């Protein structure tokens, strides 16, 4: 039988327990009110004194510093928005820091950022929307836009944001995010996969930088090298060879520079033409399925197609690589760069406060100084009417900015474009592997796409 003393001890311990719980609750409440402190890399101007040839000068220089930023806890009446993009480090780190900065400037907004693998991105967005809990800001790949819009899943931009896009950005920004007369978001970045050469290999071969496809073909003979057994020692170029979006993009530039295209705006097949066949036969000279995927990084290939974002990958994975972007090649129908976009879209599900915060955030994210942050992180090209002054002399950006003038979307805004891409790229892959002719590949592709179109 429990003694009085034992009962007293248990009462004391229960009292102690309650005190402890109350203390923990108070600590948790305090923690919730305590601002979060994060580190950020910012560029600041500093005055320094330097001695030049015996003369003392005072100069203002820009330096990057790590600073701590207090992110106040969101007030009870604040709004929380979720935000997702595909994974591409260190771009994700830069985006996360930008999210933190926006929160510091807008204490009533809390942003939760989620990078998602590209292969799962579309599925993740779709299932989140279907589940009634979408991300408030979604980084959407351009060809996916029609399916989201036709499903009633995206909010068109309010008028003041459309006006902002009209006034402050190049026409391609608005055009690429427009569907059926409505603009659906700010462009995150434009995908321009243009020629990047290995300047050292070109110099060693005495090759001039080609300006046209014909010149490129001539240069290949100087750069292609095989051993006595027929194995590659060095390749003049390595363009995409396996089915999928990259093959479609790379071949897209060839196709459109020869006066053809994948599909017309009213969704008719337009690649199975003499020009398309000529373009595909030409493409085979630069696509080598027996070469490893990383040939350019391994200093074994003199050229590949890539975008401005590849700068960080080159610097990190091949620091000794002397890479250089050159202008897209001119074909019989002129100079055309196959392009695509990624844009920030706002779903139709959400509270008015969330949507407003989301639009404000994407507008803020598209300001020149914020594009500059992403350029510094991975080389993403600022999409503004003029390059920020600090990068006006950047040779990497200069080339891509010039290419932007030749950029054209390679895809129509067709909700089944993903299926078209699969069907056509299957045949392109078989051609690149030498199993069928260019004419057969394009005919097979046309037949498959027409079958898909007939399904409605």
């Amino acid at each position, binding site marked *: 039988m429990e003694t009085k003393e034992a009962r007293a001890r248990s009462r004391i311990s229960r009292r102690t327990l309650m005190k402890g719980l109350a203390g923990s609750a108070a600590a948790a409440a305090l923690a919730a009110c305590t601002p979060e402190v994060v580190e950020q890399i910012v560029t600041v101007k500093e005055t320094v004194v330097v001695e030049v040839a015996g003369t003392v000068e005072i100069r203002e220089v820009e330096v990057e510093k790590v600073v701590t930023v207090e992110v106040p806890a969101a007030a009870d009446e604040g709004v929380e928005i979720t935000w997702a993009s595909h994974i591409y480090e260190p771009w994700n780190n830069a985006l996360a820091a930008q999210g933190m900065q926006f929160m510091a400037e807008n204490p009533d907004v809390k942003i939760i950022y989620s990078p998602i693998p590209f292969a799962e991105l579309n599925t993740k967005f*779709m299932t989140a929307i279907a589940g009634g809990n979408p991300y408030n800001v979604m980084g959407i790949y351009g060809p996916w836009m029609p399916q989201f819009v036709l*499903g009633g899943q995206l909010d068109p931009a309010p008028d003041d944001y459309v006006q902002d896009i009209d006034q402050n950005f190049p026409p391609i920004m608005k055009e690429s995010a427009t569907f059926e007369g409505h603009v659906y978001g700010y462009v995150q970045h434009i995908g321009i996969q243009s020629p990047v050469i290995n300047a050292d290999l070109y110099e060693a071969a005495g090759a001039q930088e080609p300006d046209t496809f014909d010149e490129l073909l001539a240069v290949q003979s100087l750069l292609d090298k095989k051993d006595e*057994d027929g194995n590659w020692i060095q390749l003049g170029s390595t363009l995409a060879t396996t089915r999928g979006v990259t093959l479609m993009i790379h071949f897209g530039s060839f196709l459109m520079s020869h006066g053809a295209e994948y599909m017309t705006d009213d969704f008719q097949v337009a690649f199975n033409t003499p020009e398309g066949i000529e373009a595909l036969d030409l493409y085979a000279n630069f696509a080598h399925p*027996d070469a490893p995927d990383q040939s350019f990084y391994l200093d074994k290939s003199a050229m590949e197609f890539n975008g401005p974002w590849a700068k960080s990958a080159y610097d990190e994975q091949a620091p000794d690589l002397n890479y250089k972007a050159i202008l897209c090649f001119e074909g019989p129908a002129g100079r055309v760069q196959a392009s695509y976009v990624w844009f920030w879209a706002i779903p139709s599900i959400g509270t008015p406060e969330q949507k407003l915060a989301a639009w404000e955030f994407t507008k803020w994210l598209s300001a020149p100084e914020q594009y500059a942050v992403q350029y510094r992180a991975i080389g993403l090209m600022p999409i503004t009417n003029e390059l920020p002054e600090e990068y006006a002399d950047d040779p990497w950006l200069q080339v891509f900015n010039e290419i932007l003038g030749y950029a054209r979307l390679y895809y129509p805004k067709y909700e089944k474009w993903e299926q078209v891409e*699969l069907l056509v790229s*299957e045949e392109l*892959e078989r051609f690149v592997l030498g*199993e069928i002719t260019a004419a057969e590949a394009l005919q097979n592709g046309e037949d498959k796409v027409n079958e898909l179109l007939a399904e409605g």
Partner: protein
Amino acid sequence: MALGAVKKRPRRYSSTQLKRNLFIWGSLTPILLLFLIFAALPIVASFYISLHDWSLVGAERPFIGLRNYVDVLQDDRFYIALKNSAYYAVAYMVLVVALGLGLALLLDGLPQLPREVFRAVYFVPQVTSVVAIALIFRWLYQPQWGVLNYLFSFVGLGPFSYIKSSTQVMPSIIALGVWRSLGYSMVIYTSGLVSISPELKEAASIDGASKWQTFWRIIIPLLQPTTLFMLVTTMIGGFQVFTEIWLMSRGGPGTASRVLVLEIYEQGFRFFEMGYASALAFFLFIIVGVIVFFQMRFTRETYG
């Protein structure tokens, strides 16, 4: 009550019996619930979805009956995927079973220590990440700079294109799958061989049976349960192949390695046609079920 009629006494459980039944049901309930929630209900839901024009794009999902099933039967890509899946499954099954048995027989004759070492070594691929294996195999299969073509060149073979060829892609991926599963098959057959009494083999030897006769007339029939298990599981696994295909070829070149599960995945999670994908999944279920049924029947009839 009529004469001769037996009054039925109500069944009564003793408290011990009741407790025992409660214990059994109590133990089974969690696993039954898990099966219900994560297997049975999704299967029923999937069938329900397959009867609708169910797309993740858009809110309307009208009932269309068996329309999705009709569309599958009219789709050329379904037959291509079915053919490739059957090709993979049959080759995978035959090679895994035959080579696994061969390996088990070879190890059976070794002393214990080397037997255990080899068993562990051959089982390592089974427990290794398939992603890691696929990445290594992609380099092994590299036509110009891959190790395999380099080694083959010493014996005058190759160069082969492996996954870069429509005719070689399936054998290349089958080789990867078989290599990975060989250890598992060997372990299963090893346990089967251990269960065969050595006295039977001794008796056969005394009666003048050759090694081949002993193997064919005694060991093989006694391994029937093991063989049946392996045939069924490898056939099911073969038809469900996806990861190796996705990592090595994505169904290419062209449609040369396009299999049913890849088709289901792309229809459901790339094109968001959930109704159509569900119908495809049910076709896969029916096909595998029929094949396994006939497999089990044939094996039992042959070996009793």
